[in-house]
């Protein structure tokens, strides 16, 4: 599936010539930085200093690296499952590969995408099950696995050893990123969104938003006659507005922090070779999913305003807008924070967008 022809991943490493075939489990040994660099080269994240990488078009690299598995707040298993789906890997369910038609075709060598799992370091426990299942699928012919794990693996087909070299390094070149056109795995993206929406972190953020709602209600009640006319129902309008703004601020801040904490995630998704629609949908799945419970909390004050007094339609319309505020904030914050903007700009942009929406 992948041939390394005198590849020098980083300076100071002797050229490596090796072959990674479908169904093989390969172990990398040598200095950790050199192994990591070689996995980057195989994954297409970086070009080799020297040599050439010949990659079967069906081979889609999936680099799972300790410390950059998934954005925080999303279950690693869910992230890896979505990630593998983007790469065309067999569908995962409960940590096990579902042997579907694509996997069967891959096992017979048909021209369908097959993942090359590149495991760098000790992956988190929650991810191990997914990777083990992928390795099982690879042994069946659906892809291959290259593993750098200090703890070692019981069963490997062969080992690629990296050694140091005193030869002068060649100049750096920028390599192309593999692109394979395939269907967008909507099911996996939806599952990722659901995991993000129902992750413990999402519940925790919703709890913070509810606490903010309580604080806002107490402050509004204490300022009756100042912010609003005494006895006026405008107090509830203020409560709904502040609740939505608070939820949007929480959503924007959390999403920006999550995006900032996982800078490799867009790169990881990109190197799967998935199309732009799939990559955007994956990013949105985490951002929107993570803000779903916040949106539900933001709607609560609007529900409290429903009194059957004839303004139900307008109140429901306002509720939709206030529920959308955290989602918009998270989307904008995530998109900006993953871009080249300085840290924190995404959160500010998300808050501004949400406040503008909530003010409506």
């Amino acid at each position: 599936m992948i041939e390394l022809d005198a590849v020098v991943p980083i300076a100071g490493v002797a050229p490596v010539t090796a072959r990674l075939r479908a169904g093989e489990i390969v172990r990398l040994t040598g200095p950790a930085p050199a192994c990591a660099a070689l996995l980057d080269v195989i994954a297409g994240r970086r070009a080799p200093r020297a040599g050439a990488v010949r990659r079967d078009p069906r081979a889609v690299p999936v680099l799972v690296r300790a410390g950059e598995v998934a954005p925080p707040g999303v279950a690693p298993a869910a992230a890896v499952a979505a990630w593998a789906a983007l790469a065309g890997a067999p569908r995962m369910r409960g940590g096990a590969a579902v042997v579907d038609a694509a996997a069967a075709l891959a096992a017979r060598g048909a021209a369908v995408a097959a993942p090359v799992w590149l495991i760098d370091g000790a992956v988190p426990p929650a991810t191990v099950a997914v990777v083990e299942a992928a390795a099982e699928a690879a042994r069946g012919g659906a892809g291959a696995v290259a593993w750098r794990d200090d703890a070692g693996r019981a069963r490997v087909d062969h080992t690629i050893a990296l050694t140091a070299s005193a030869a002068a390094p060649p100049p750096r070149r920028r390599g192309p990123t593999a692109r394979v056109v395939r269907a967008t795995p909507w099911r996996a993206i939806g599952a990722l969104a659901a995991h993000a929406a129902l992750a413990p972190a999402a519940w925790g953020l919703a709890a913070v938003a509810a606490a903010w709602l309580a604080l806002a209600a107490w402050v509004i009640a204490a300022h009756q006659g100042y912010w609003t006319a005494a006895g006026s129902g405008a107090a509830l309008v203020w409560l709904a507005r502040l609740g939505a703004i608070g939820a949007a601020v929480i959503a924007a801040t959390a999403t920006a922090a999550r995006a900032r904490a996982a800078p490799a995630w867009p790169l990881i998704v990109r190197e799967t070779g998935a199309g732009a629609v799939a990559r955007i949908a994956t990013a949105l799945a985490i951002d929107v999913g993570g803000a779903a419970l916040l949106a539900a909390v933001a709607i609560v004050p609007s529900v409290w305003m429903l009194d059957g007094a004839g303004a139900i339609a307008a109140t429901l319309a306002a509720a939709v807008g206030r529920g959308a505020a955290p989602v918009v904030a998270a989307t904008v914050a995530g998109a900006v924070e993953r871009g080249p903007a300085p840290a924190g700009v995404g959160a500010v942009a998300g808050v501004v967008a949400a406040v503008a929406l909530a003010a409506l």
Partner: protein
Amino acid sequence: MRRGAAAIVAAAVALSAVAAEAAVPLEVRAARGLAELVPADGLEVIVIDVRSGADAPAQIAIEVDGVAAADAVALAARGRAQVTVARRVPSGAARLAPVAVRTRAQGDAAWIAIELPPLAIAARPVVVFTDGAAAVVPPLDGWRRARGADAIVALPLDAPVRWPALVGAGAVVIDRPAAALPAALARELTRHLASGGTVCRVGAGAAEPRCARAQAIAVPRTRQPGDVGPPVRARARLAVGLAIALAIAGALRRRAPRWALGVGGSALVLTALAVVGIGGEGLRTRGVRAAAGGGEDWIVAELGASDLAALPVPLDGALWLEPSGATAGVIRLDAPVVAAPGSWRVRGFVAADAAGWAGGLRRIARPTPELP
């Protein structure tokens, strides 16, 4: 001076025969004022009596001079309903124009209308309750002039007078002890006395009536805004409960219990909104109450109804309730209801052990007034 019961108040009668197209035949009678006058700065009380000639229950609507006075008054089959409404006597006016009272059953297109005759307006009139007006009233004329009263009017002891009709009277005179008065009249005069009115008794051989008046108390006269604090704070407590449920759900390791607690607990907390009724009665009160005798308290208060109050709020008691600062409009005396948000001025009588909205009023210790 003695007049029959029919002449106590100006009255009019309309029979359903005049409205042949009405599905529910109604007989309407109405009376207004004290005999042919009303006290200046007082209330023009209109008592409307409706009888149904239909064999089925009905609900009726009543208008006074085109203003809705009562909606959905229940009327049993061949039953009778009495509605008492009042209007403030316009300041500075010398005479009240005739008033039109219209009634119709729900579903009927046609109104049954009657017209009540005009009334004179007298400043601080003396109202005498007696069955012997010819003997009692003439000797009081000098006393009346000395008190600056415009007129003196005699009513029989069985006159259906209610205490709001006596507001603005200079004095009310009786010719016998309270124990010898009809119970209904004694109660209304006791209420008049407790509300700050003057009640006098003319005794045999006495040169002047002996008068009693309750000790004056300071009452609130400024508006009372409503209060949304309690319902908003109740929502804050619900939000705290929601936060706790969500936090516990987030701390659970397994997905199924987390989902169950998060969604179920949140739904439970939010459903509590409907169960506990966080709107509540929603009335903010400011005012005073004082013993009025007869197991009642005299109250003067301003009620603030917020936008979040569970309106309409019917009030128990013999109350005169109107929007604070109102100078016109029809007041329903027999069914006081806080119908809309805003400040409401209420005065009248509630049971001495009344709680609820009346429980928050400041109790004034003063001697219980007694009829002379």
